[in-house]
């Protein structure tokens, strides 16, 4: 019981810090920074991931090999190590010091770009082969067929996976804490340092906030997934459609 009262007290004393950090007297932080970082991260990673997926599926080895190698390297190394790399290399490349927010954003773009590109690739290869063949037979070039026939269908089918990846991105922004990016986890750390005596309450509040945000998005993704499966099944003709829709529901 006292635990619950403590938690309510901590939230009512610190809700502004949890929401926007020290803004407007300092940098934007808290939930706002977490969400902005995730949205920007996934928005910038998306075009990169489409380009990488196309490169991995392209008929030209010059494009295929480097893209494949990049995806394997990024997927095989902890995010924390990639943060360290970006933290060290980005200032060298640009020639001036880089704020933590930008370091974290650049890391997320690289990391999410690689993971999203696997999703995009899976979405493309999941389309029936006939789509590509038909598009080519109609006179489209490889790129034209991708642009007008394959990608619009594949990207639509991928919307739920992209939302799931957005949830992962939100969870990954917590690592910004390690290089002192003022996001939600950082704000909780500040509160904990000030109170000193209630670490369990502070970190439990933090967990609940993340849970509420991510769980809502996860639910949204699975609802969309069901709808898209039904719609896809409907757009197919023949007797297979109801069966497919039923299969996707279970």
């Amino acid at each position, binding site marked *: 019981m006292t635990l619950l009262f403590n938690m309510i007290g901590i939230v009512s004393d610190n809700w502004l810090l949890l929401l926007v950090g020290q803004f407007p007297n300092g940098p934007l932080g808290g939930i706002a920074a977490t969400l902005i970082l995730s949205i920007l991260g996934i928005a910038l990673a998306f075009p990169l991931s489409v380009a990488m997926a196309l490169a991995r599926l392209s008929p030209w080895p010059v494009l295929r090999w480097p893209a494949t190698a990049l995806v394997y390297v990024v997927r095989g*190394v902890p995010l924390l190590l990639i943060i360290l790399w970006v933290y060290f290399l980005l200032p060298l490349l640009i020639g001036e010091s880089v704020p933590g927010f930008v370091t974290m954003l650049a890391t997320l773009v690289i990391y999410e770009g690689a993971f999203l590109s696997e999703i995009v690739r899976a979405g493309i290869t999941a389309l029936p082969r006939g789509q590509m063949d038909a598009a080519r037979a109609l006179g489209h070039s490889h790129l034209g067929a991708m642009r007008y026939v394959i990608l619009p269908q594949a990207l639509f089918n991928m919307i739920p996976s992209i939302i799931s990846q957005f949830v992962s991105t939100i*969870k990954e922004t917590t690592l910004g*804490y*390690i290089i002192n990016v003022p996001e939600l986890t950082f704000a909780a750390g500040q509160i904990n340092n000030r109170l000193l005596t209630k*670490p369990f309450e502070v970190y*439990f509040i933090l*967990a609940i906030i993340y849970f509420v945000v991510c769980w809502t998005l996860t639910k949204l993704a699975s609802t969309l997934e069901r709808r898209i499966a039904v719609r896809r099944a409907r757009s197919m003709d023949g007797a297979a459609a109801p069966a497919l829709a039923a299969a996707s529901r279970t």
Partner: protein
Amino acid sequence: MKGFDLMAILLNPEFSRMLVHGVKMTFIIFAGSWLLAMSLGITLLAIRMLPGRIADALVEAYVAYHRNVPTLVQLMLWYFGVSSLLPERLQVWLSDQNGEAIFAVIALGLCQAAYFSEDHRSGLRAVPKGQWEAARALGHSYLGAMTYILLPQAVRNAMPALVNHTVSLFKNSSLAMAIGVTELTHAVKEVENQSFRAFETYLIATVFYLVCSLLLMWLGYYFERRSRMAGAL
């Protein structure tokens, strides 16, 4: 900037000692949390298959919590939060026993158990219902049918997902540095601070993590191929 010199790190006894210790800790954290996650994941699946809604809902809540809260936050909640609720003598004892590592294993293991149990569950769901009916018709008991007919097929179905999550557990072991475990990423930062050779140090760690991840993926692929049934799709 100094020229590239990998040997300045590798041949330095102090630095190489720190890195080797880091690798050792990384393996300990990984192995410990993997074993915890795997056994707990299977237990969760078994609980979920009990008749009745309550057990099912509890496991579902467990899985939802661990999948929607960032792993770093789970680590911090255990290390800073839960440990502070323990009796003082236990706290002292834990800090003598390398408490950071113990809490890292607990937090990472509990978190990954949620993923493993979901993998096993979807593997089990993918086994055709007829297999169960046939096994029972042949006279197998519930446990017999599970052990000999259903679970072997379920694990085979779940293999690719289990391998993926094993690799991500291996990579997540690096998060333990945030609560002060002296694993590889921690060692890398220390060596970099002392040697001022970030490029070389990061390169060594990157190659290590990459080789281990690829090795895990390859092992998974190998077992998956070896366990494939004759005539299976």
